[in-house]
């Protein structure tokens, strides 16, 4: 089976934390365990402040195997308020990425 992954159009990640809590609910992780984290990369460059966030699937990310087996999207992808995450085959996602500036591709585990 082709390797699956997450394409994250981080330019659109607003730092809303929906993916973080969706993941905890799906996996029943207590506070302190994270399947995905959102990091703040805010910085100042030449008089402008760039507010950027990046979701980072951790080693606990299983791409919501139970959900995807039932034809559902991973919990983070479905609930992302900005709709900036896509689940799919890594090769296919990489092709999408060619026309998606400021994006990253994750192939967890």
């Amino acid at each position: 089976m082709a390797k699956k992954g997450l394409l994250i159009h981080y330019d659109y990640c607003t730092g809303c934390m929906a993916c973080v809590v969706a993941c905890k609910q799906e996996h029943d992780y207590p506070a302190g365990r994270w399947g995905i984290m959102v990091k703040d990369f805010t910085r100042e460059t030449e008089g402008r402040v760039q507010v950027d966030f990046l979701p980072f699937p951790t080693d606990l990310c299983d791409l919501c195997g139970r959900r995807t087996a039932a034809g559902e999207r991973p919990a983070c992808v479905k609930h992302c308020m900005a709709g900036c995450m896509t689940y799919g085959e890594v090769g296919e996602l990489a092709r999408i990425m060619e026309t998606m500036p400021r994006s990253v591709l994750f192939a967890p585990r």
Partner: protein
Amino acid sequence: MAKGTFVRTTAWSPGPGCHGGCGLELYVEDGRLVKVEGDQYHPYNQGRLCPRALALTQYVYHPERFLYPLKRVGERGEGKFERISWDEALDTVEERLGEIRDKYGAEAVIFAQGTGRDVGGPISFLCYSFGSPNWVQLGLAGHSCYTPRLAAMMFTHGDYAVLDAGQFLPEGMADPEYEVPKVIVVWAQNPAAGCQDGFYGHWVTDCMKRGSKLIVIDPRWTWFSSRAEKFLQLRPGTDAALALGMLNVIISEGLYDREFVDEWCSGFDELAARAAEYPLDRVSAITWVPAEDIAQAARLYAEARPAAIQWGVPIDMGPSGTTIAQAITHLWSITGNLDIPGGQVIARAAFEVATYPFSTQELHSLYGEEFVKRMNEKRIGAQEFKLLRNFRGWGQPDRAVEQMLSGEPYPIKACWIQTTNMLGGQAADTRLHYRALKNMEFNVVVDCFPNPTSMAVADLILPAASIAEKESLRSWWSPLQVMMPAVQVGECRSDWEINLELAKRFNPELRRRFDTVKDLIDDRLKPSGYTFDELKDGHWKFPEKDTPTRPYRRYEKGLLRPDGRPGFRTPTGRLELYSTSFKEFDMDPLPFFTEPPESEVRTPELAAKYPLVMVSGRRSPVFFHSEHRNIPWLRECDPDPIVEIHPDTAQALGISDGEWVAIFNDRGRIRRKAKVTPIVHPKTISVPHGWWLPETQGTEPDLYGIWDLNCNLLVNIGPGDASGYGGGPYKTTLVAVKKLGEGAAAGRGAGDTAKRGEE
């Protein structure tokens, strides 16, 4: 995921806590809520969901949750409560409030709520059934949350208006009638961190993906500022000057929509003359924004068609909030962006079904014009403020708290406090509100969890149901929909259930009209022709085309005025750039700028002592106001009560990132953990509001740390304006900051400042 059975409902209030609107799937196993998913078929959120709604199971089954009615058995503040039955609780309320009504009149009881949640309908219903005119957002200085903006819109164009994100159309942005705004002005809001005023914040990102360019106006950099064509980082509280400066550019450069102005507006020449008093150099000096940036933003907005403005509560909180809002409405009016696709669409409750009465017209439809008039005779603030007397039904919050202590012009003896934690939240001058509530003979708190307010002042506590446990209705704005219970938790009851039962006791005539909450909902749904049963299980309804509650261009079609003629629902039938109503209310009929009550310009000596402008109230996506600090999944995303401080300012004060600092002025001192960040201006600090620590001591004197952490200890009450609305100085309070050094963490040693409530 689709497993087990689920109940399809709409989120509005306890749980996510917000202004609501999202479609939910509530999964139930063995009578227990096990999971929450977004409803992908719901037009509002299309399956997406915020962290607060996703954490609903931790909220519903939280170990601290109120599950039964409780009566106080110790002193107020000792935290000693005893479980009682609902019968005893309701009998007690009936008896105690009944006695006060007999002795002092119904107006001696204030019915207090917080933000725009699904409590406005039930609490106004109970308040009026009891016979009190005093439905109040107690603690909200200047009544500065949406009502000032609503008043400006109502008296300018006879209706409310919102950014068109396709939310009034069944197909949303895919509807063939819809057009995406070419330019969006995000004014004083971070739409990524919550859905304010019934608007799903990420509709703005949806528009950006479809090509909308941004202008952002804010004292603080946000995700949106970083992606804007123009970012205007203005001095807090100077929004009116900026709007007038932009109007001046648009008018003097001829960029306005002449045809629309000639055909539909009045007072243009007067507005042009007023705007001319705001040349760019003056506006730049007032606002800190470079003149060229103001001019470019004005041109970018005016030359785009359609263009729309998404605005936030800081506008209400500016000095004379109503007039700031009025200036901003004129931007969309003179550019012809009103009620066109992708512009500012007129917003009415779907099918004119009133849930939470948002306007005088809705109050009349629910309770009759005579009743509303009679209520105005004693409504707090209605004699003093003519605008307030002629708009909606709220009592004026600042006058209310003063009257709770003075007893003038008539005594206030009891407070019904429904899902509002004002002492941990919105109450400006927290000590004043603390003393006022302690001065009451009887306080009832209806809520979900213990909080500083319930701990300090409750005599009786009634457990409120969450969104997962209630029947209700929603028509803010479209579609029309109902809420369905999925589970029962303890003996919790919904706000509607509690208030209907008590309303029937206070006004027995209601017994004939409503047996159950469903009867009441069906009654309210009548203008739509639908019933509760027809709307449940996801059968929400959008109004049909060419009806008064669906866009577009209703002023051309005669769909706005009661007489069916084209035009607007104003005294003159025109869009009044010069407001004849404001003139009648002894207000300036045109917008103007006034300095914040405290500022480097108005009070230079105070500014020398307290050189930083404290801007409170920035939103966190994981909290709603003072809620959710007790929800583990949410708290770990935003764990500390922080203050955002610019690196240059921090360096000058010797403050490092992560250290505890004191923030103070003549009104008091609080502590916060410094977050050193370039997103704030060096002359401002951003202090998130609503902070208390549920994990710490709740009993007096600590009250979960509010005397150490609550930024509103430093903020004065309002109002700042002749309208009675606006000028709650939450965004413009002058403060100083200093290092605290070792051992200064919050939650420990609260005792040194804890007694401040008694001062």
